[in-house]
């Protein structure tokens, strides 16, 4: 095991895959010479040169489209959208072109494109640079969606994403970039669609992603003092989604709490909850409770931002509510 930051894990995944496969190229706004606005990708430009690593104009449609076209022709582009919020200026290229191209072409094309973007709140970037955007992509069949919560998963999932023949939206949580974690030495791949169970318990199942994983674990600690044990599951990828692990857990606990940072209406929590209430209704012994972004537009002011993003206290209350008999 080696210690590295979430940020370094992104860089290492890119470096390893670019070293391994000459078809991997990487471009985006200021990702090359400057190493990215979040300083996530330093050194790649120097190592792989200006043909394979490129800085682009501020043209998100052109960026994603170039990724789609290059992917169709057999390259494996990794493109960066910088802030995930910017996907909104180019959603057409992502969900109408990249996601559907294989289908529309009757299986002739494949689009091995990886779209990296930093999402999430907590940094005081206000309403247009803080959103969690996974819902847009989950709702678009043809796209895989990764939401790593720690450096090891960043490394293993990003490498898998680049090798995947489907378009993948790879969402990094910007507030986690500096977080450190242990990463296996040598080649480390994490398959898509396999959740990790970070804590086991018998009273409540919590499903959480990215920064909310730590929040869920902290809440579990707190609840443990009262003898309530929580099982905490990190799905790691939302498409595909490992419902088996979640359902098995709910079978045991009878209760489900989802903890996500996205706006309440139509977040992934609703999707997980609904699948459980279809396939797993008979195991459920209490309400399914979602903890989400309250109010749902992210304010700039710190006390307000802290208030709307789920925290330990809100998760603890949600679990207690879920335990209502």
């Amino acid at each position, binding site marked *: 095991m080696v210690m590295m930051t979430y940020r370094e894990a992104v860089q290492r995944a890119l470096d390893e895959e670019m070293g391994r496969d000459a078809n991997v*190229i990487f471009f985006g706004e200021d990702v090359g010479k400057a190493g990215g606005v979040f300083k996530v990708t330093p050194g790649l430009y120097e190592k792989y040169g200006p*043909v*394979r690593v*490129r800085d*682009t*104009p501020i*043209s*998100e*449609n*052109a*960026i*994603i*489209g*170039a*990724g*789609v*076209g*290059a*992917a*169709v*022709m*057999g*390259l494996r*582009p990794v493109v960066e959208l910088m802030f995930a919020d910017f996907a909104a200026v180019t959603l*057409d*290229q992502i969900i*109408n*072109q990249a996601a559907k*191209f*294989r*289908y*529309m*072409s*009757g*299986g*002739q*094309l*494949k689009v091995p494109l990886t779209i990296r973007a930093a999402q999430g709140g907590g940094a005081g970037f206000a309403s247009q640079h803080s959103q969690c955007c996974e819902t847009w992509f989950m709702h678009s*069949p*043809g796209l895989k969606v990764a939401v790593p919560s720690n450096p090891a998963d960043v490394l293993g999932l990003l490498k898998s994403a680049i090798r*995947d*023949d*489907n378009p993948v939206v790879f969402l990094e949580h910007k507030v986690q970039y500096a977080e450190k974690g242990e990463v296996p030495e040598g080649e480390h791949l994490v398959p898509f669609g396999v959740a990790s169970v970070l804590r086991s318990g018998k009273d409540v199942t919590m499903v959480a992603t990215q920064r909310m994983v730590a929040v869920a674990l902290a809440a579990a600690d707190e609840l443990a003092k009262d003898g309530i044990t929580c099982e905490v599951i990190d799905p790691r990828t939302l498409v595909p989604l490992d419902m088996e692990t979640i359902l098995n857990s709910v079978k045991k606990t009878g209760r489900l709490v989802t903890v996500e940072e996205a706006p309440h209406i139509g977040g992934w929590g609703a999707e997980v909850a609904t699948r459980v209430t279809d396939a797993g209704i008979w195991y459920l012994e209490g309400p399914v409770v979602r903890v989400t972004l309250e109010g749902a537009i992210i304010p700039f002011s710190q006390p307000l931002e802290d208030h709307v993003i789920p925290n330990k206290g809100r998760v603890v209350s949600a679990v207690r509510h879920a335990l209502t008999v």
Partner: protein
Amino acid sequence: MIAAALPVDTRFHMLQRMLEIRHCEERIQELFLENVIRGTTHLCIGQEAVSVGMAATIDAPRGDTVTCTYRGHGHALALGLTLRSMMAEMMGKEAGCCKGKGGSMHLTDMSVGLIGTFAIVGAGLPVTNGAALAAQIRGNGAVSISIFGDGTPNIGAWHEAVNLAAVWKLPSIFLCENNLYGEYSPYETTAPVPNVADRAAAYNIPGVIVDGQDAEAVYAVVQEAVDRARAGHGPTLIEAKTYRYKGHSRTDPATYRPAGELEQWQARDPIHILAERMKADGQLNDQQFKQMDQQAQDAVQEATTWALAQPYPPVEAAFEDIWV
């Protein structure tokens, strides 16, 4: 610019293809009105010279590619999509180039270099850049042509793509079919410059206007742009002045067109122009032309009959090809 005459076999090939496209489009409209083809169609009748002039520059085995719009039947056929594959796709049959999943607006045939006919205005250009980027990285001298209409330069994706191609000197060629209308809007009501080619100034790339009714002229300017691109000199914006004889789509009667306009353009019909030139050069006579025309008609009829007899895909096919 008076284009140099092309070799006689190239001319024959172009003429044959234009006739096939013409008859195929007419047949498609009939089938549409008979409810055999559903949804929508955007016919290119009148614009065939652009298709064959463009296609003659494409070297698919080398890696050249094309993206175009929903008004793409002609380009697809000119590139070499078979009439059978086309007709079957129009009807949603399993034997269609996209197994019936794409339909009139989404044709792909990678064997002829056709990446796709894009249904979202402007969406094809960024993708053409990607193909051009792959060529640039591989150094294989391949190019990618994106074809679009006169209403398309108003959309952001168009601008971003032309701009990126200019900045990266990509081997992309941007070929506008200015058929005077974007849906029901005359060009001049939605664009601030008289010619689409005038926009090239904003990207520091050549902007060329060509007679879109003259297949040889189209070929010449596109070939020049292709040569520039292959040589690493970057993109070109070409505007072919042309006209669609039919309405925008489906059953649009095109009542917004001034009286006489259609007839004026029909007098410069692309098939007629090439045929007359060949006749003048002693390469073709009326009898031969009639034969070619009949052949094209027969080929279209054969493909139609064949496609009609083809099965629909099994319903399970709806769930295939979403994922690799």
